[in-house]
């Protein structure tokens, strides 16, 4: 009932950010040697690990093979220690299945699958610590992992959640805000062309506000893309230094 005050009169959010500010994003690429590509990404207190295998030939049922492009296979899971209370079932529940599907759709839009007909790309994402915005963190981590695997993409895929409080859009919600009854919207963007890879919203929102909310989400995604770009360049620099030696 008491309801947290998500946005104070002075414009501060619960954790001290202003409405348009993102959480701190930190990432590393190439964290595992065994996989084709991998990345670790922290967005505030939400931490995710993404691993990419492939492209390789179809495994399991061959009937799913597509003759003109690659199949993308995604699996989303949460570590049992990722939430405040221990999670019983790390993957396979409805939420995870839905999230896997969303990831799949997102990356089918971004990865140039037609370059690899009759093959398969596996993307596995695990949330190590969950503090809101799980979907967007997964997308951002998976993007880095795909890049690390050297699979061509149209553009970075950057995702961000935005919420709507007191007629103001809040960028990059944390868990306290997400659970505080905010109508939130998740958006995955290909920033250079401004194409939307996925847009998802479960809450009620007045039609008039949708425009502003999407605009805010796009701005936030572009912010994320800048950070990711930096991470990739940094990583390449490190790798190239290593190979030169």
């Amino acid at each position, binding site marked *: *009932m*008491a309801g947290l*005050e998500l946005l*104070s*009169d*002075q414009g*501060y959010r*619960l*954790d*001290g*950010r202003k409405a348009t*500010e993102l*959480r*701190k994003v930190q990432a590393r690429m190439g964290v595992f040697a065994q996989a084709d590509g991998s990345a670790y990404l922290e967005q*505030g*207190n939400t931490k995710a690990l993404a691993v990419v295998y492939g492209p390789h030939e179809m495994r399991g049922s061959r009937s799913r093979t597509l003759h003109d492009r690659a199949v993308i296979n995604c699996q989303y899971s949460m570590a049992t220690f990722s939430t*405040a*209370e221990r999670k019983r079932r790390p993957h396979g529940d409805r939420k995870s299945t839905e999230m896997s599907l969303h990831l799949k759709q997102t990356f089918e839009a971004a990865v140039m699958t037609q370059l690899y007909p009759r093959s398969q790309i596996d993307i596995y994402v695990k949330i190590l610590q969950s*503090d809101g915005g799980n979907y967007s963190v997964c997308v951002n981590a998976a993007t880095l992992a795909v890049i690390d695997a050297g699979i061509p993409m149209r553009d970075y895929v950057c995702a961000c959640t935005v919420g709507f409080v007191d*007629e103001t859009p809040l960028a990059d919600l*944390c868990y*306290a805000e997400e659970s505080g009854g905010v109508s939130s919207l998740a958006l995955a963007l290909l920033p250079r062309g401004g194409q939307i890879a996925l847009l998802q919203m479960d809450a009620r929102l007045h039609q008039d506000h949708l425009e502003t909310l999407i605009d805010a989400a796009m701005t936030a995604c572009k912010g994320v893309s800048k950070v990711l770009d930096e991470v990739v360049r940094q990583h390449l620099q490190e790798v190239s230094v290593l190979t030169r030696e």
Partner: protein
Amino acid sequence: MIKTERILHLKSCRGRKVRVVREHYVRERVPCFSALCQADCDNDGKVLPGDLTHYVVPDVGVVVDYLEILEFRELQGIVFTQTACQAVQHSKGRRQYNRLRNLLKDPRHDCVLFANEFQEYSYCPREKGESQEKWQTRCVYSAAVWYHNHLAGMMDIVMITEDQDAVAQFSSLSSGVYVVSVQDYLSNFWMELHAAHELYNSISQALEEKESEGTEKEYTEHLPSEILEAGIKSGRYIQGVLNVNKHRAQQEALITTQASSNKNTDLSRDVLVYGGKNRNRAVHGDVVVVELLPKSEWRGKVTSLTERQGDEKTGEDEKSKPMPTGYVVGILQRNWRDYVVTFPPREATQSQSRNSQRILAIPWDPRIPKIRISTQQADALQDHRVVVRIDSWESTSLYPNGHSVRVLGRAGELETEIQTILIENFIHVPPFSEAQLKEMPVNSPEKPWKVHPSQVASRRDLRGTHLVFSIDPRGCEDVDDTLSVRTLDGGKLLELGVHIADVTHFVPEGSLTDLEARSRATTYYLADRRYDMLPAVLSADLCSLLGGVDRYAMSVLWELDAHTLEVTKVWYGRTLIRSSYQLHYELAQALLNREDTEVPELAPLSPEEKDAKLAELTQALEMLTHVARHLRAQRDRGGALELEGVEVRAQLDAEKNITALVPRQPLEVHETVAECMIYANHWVARKIQKTFPHQALLRHHPPPRQEFFSQLVDSAKARGFTINTSSNKALADSLDRAVDPEDPLVNRMLRMMATQAMSQALYFSTGAQSQEQYYHYGLALDHYTHFTSPIRRYADMIVHRLLTAAVDLDKGLSPAVALATNKELEETTQHINNKNRAAQRAQKLSIELFQCLYFKERDPQTDPSCVADAAIYAIRDNGVLVFVPQYGVKGPVYLKNRDGEVVTVGQDGRCEWKTGSVKRYSEHISTTCSSGTSTFTLFDHITVRISVQPSRCHADSLNLEIISNKPHKSAESQQPHSQGRSQLVQEVVRQAEEASQQAQERASRGPRLSKEEREFCQSKTPNLYSLLEEIRELALMDVGAAANVCASKTEIIVRF
């Protein structure tokens, strides 16, 4: 964007202890809101002035417990820390927190909020093992130090705390930051602010008391809010507002469920809460959660009349049929306010409490339980009325704990009682401050106010082209509406114009005057005085559309077809007008009737000129009347506003006791003016609704609920009339037919009952309601708003701003200031609605007060004016409710007293008390005793004697006693000019003056009162429209004044 990250907030959630980690971002640049800032902080909004001697940083404990002291406007330069605000939010709940927020928003208070926990250098993380209080104090101290450094030591910072350890620990640490206790601070810096000192003592005593309380449980504990919410969702509990029955405050309370649950048909009925234990510490007005008792324990409401002292009666009372009964399991929101109390007599004090410092004070409002307060002044304040606040109500205590805030004065004195009424209705009307008056334009003989040339250019100038005139009551000074009418295009078109004072030109949005007007929301009319919404320089001078001077106006001009009177064009906008004639109603009517009269404005002219001008004016008036008649007929056909219209006219016809306010015979010109105003309101409503479909302020009147009409229909049946309540038109028609030729009072009383059944007309924001709910039932219009009286209603000012914005938009300009959003507007309308309700209640109470004061001076046994004719309008188990038309008084008459005796009627109609029994039927009530049976039927006329029942702690009330069952014949003949209410008011004021003049020590009061009177009697009613409204309110308040058994219905007062 520089961001550093510091995590770690440990938090244990409910149920299991859970470790939650939260991020915490701090930054270097946090605005300090000080004028002395050297670092170019981004200070927008309120800024603390730089010329103070020091800034105050209150500690968490001080803000939580002593916020009231910090509310004194004398205390300047207060820096609230975010830490303290959050503590208030967590420990004191939303209400207290909103109070703090309003304080911070209010530009009249010199205080700011500093987000210390988001500032990189003032934030200190909590250390392991550090208690919450210690950490908070440390945070506040480090914020204070930051301020000192940030302002480069140019301002001394005083941190006030109640924690003595903190004083010892921090006071010597750094120069320029002083840590002192609240008491030291007050006595060092604010010696002369005695009110603050008293308040401090009172609060700290109350806090001490709280600690030393016993542990035995008087009440069951409230359930935690999560369980309550879950229970409400599952339907196990019911949520509602507690409404205590005024007449049986100890036992009965009703829970009025909120509209959301009304869809559920079986829950739409109210829930009864019987007895103090079941009520479980809820106070009148709280939002509570109840659980229903099993059906076998349900009980009915008591329907017999009880006298105030008769509360201890139990058991043998007759009950209505059982209704859902429950008990309170939790309280969602306390709605405590300031209460006026009286201390009990001395002997009672000593026997009541173990400790002579603690006193059970009795609130003025009988619905509020006694409040325990600690004070040493109990003896000195005998017979005084005191304002107190409730602090808490623990389950171990039978009564709530509170503390006194200030003393109003001796009970029974006029000033004290008026103040009591204001406080009990939450009306706060301090005199306008200097800063507010400074904003006002000047108009003095030395420096006359002039029309500004830039305004002449931007406004449409009607001075030369239009014949503008005003029609108001005689002697009116604040004219807020004028009219004009002329023919265009060789007689093919008529142009009708309504010109309203342009208040918003003088009061820009967000100015101090605007804020004050918004918080007042309306001008308050009490029986003997008036509290203006705007300063007098505006309301009586610059905004008043006086004759012969240039004034700014907001106008609506319609072009009508001269024959069909169809509207062909409407123009809205700002204008410049000069009213040619300031007419009054009688004069205008006389002109219409072509009687020979003298118009003062034409007196100095030559006869020929005069005739020409007179003909012009008369023609305009006739044209106006013609148009108004047509408009009225149109509305009658279209829907049926007859109900409301007739209401007024009928009330005027028969309402003898307010003849002093209006002529007994309503003139047609009254209606003409009212019709034009309604028309203007209607068209403005259409315009703003069209331009701003989601954020326009309109006024609607929802159709009444059919079950409320049952009393009306039943009563009418007793006289053989049928009332059809299916629609507003049917109701109006059937009321018109229900006329008893021998007794005009019957129709009037039926109309009162109909009015009582009405729901209340309310302001709302169009975004918050669906289109079909815009309908105004009383006026039968699909859109309606208030536009025509911006001088005395804040809603009209909002509408003026909306209209200006709409007109600007049409011109292609974007409005200068952003309009209020739907949510903000909806909040404002709620506020205005509440204030209007409070204003009505205050007015009603003040009238009752004057009635009591009037009868107090007279001996009921000898004075003939205390005996009056009364008509029965309702039957109860042990008596009847009567209406005394002569004084406009309503009240119960008992036919059975507490000794079991009943009233019997003797040979000559005289009544006596004898032992016997009472039997109630639907349309009559009869008493039986040894000498025979006597019957009292609805609408019978009886003779009553009026006396005052004095009350120490509450308001005095009038007592009606039956003397004869025959109509009181002599009343009319003895007093051909029956006592008008305003006469009554004047009489009482005069008496108060005399009494006060006799009292030597209050010699100054006499002239003051009379001055007030002179000031306030100027024109109680600015124009007819408001006049009609007021009469209706008065009439309706009579209805409300009746000893109404259903508590929920007493609040229903219609106001169109």
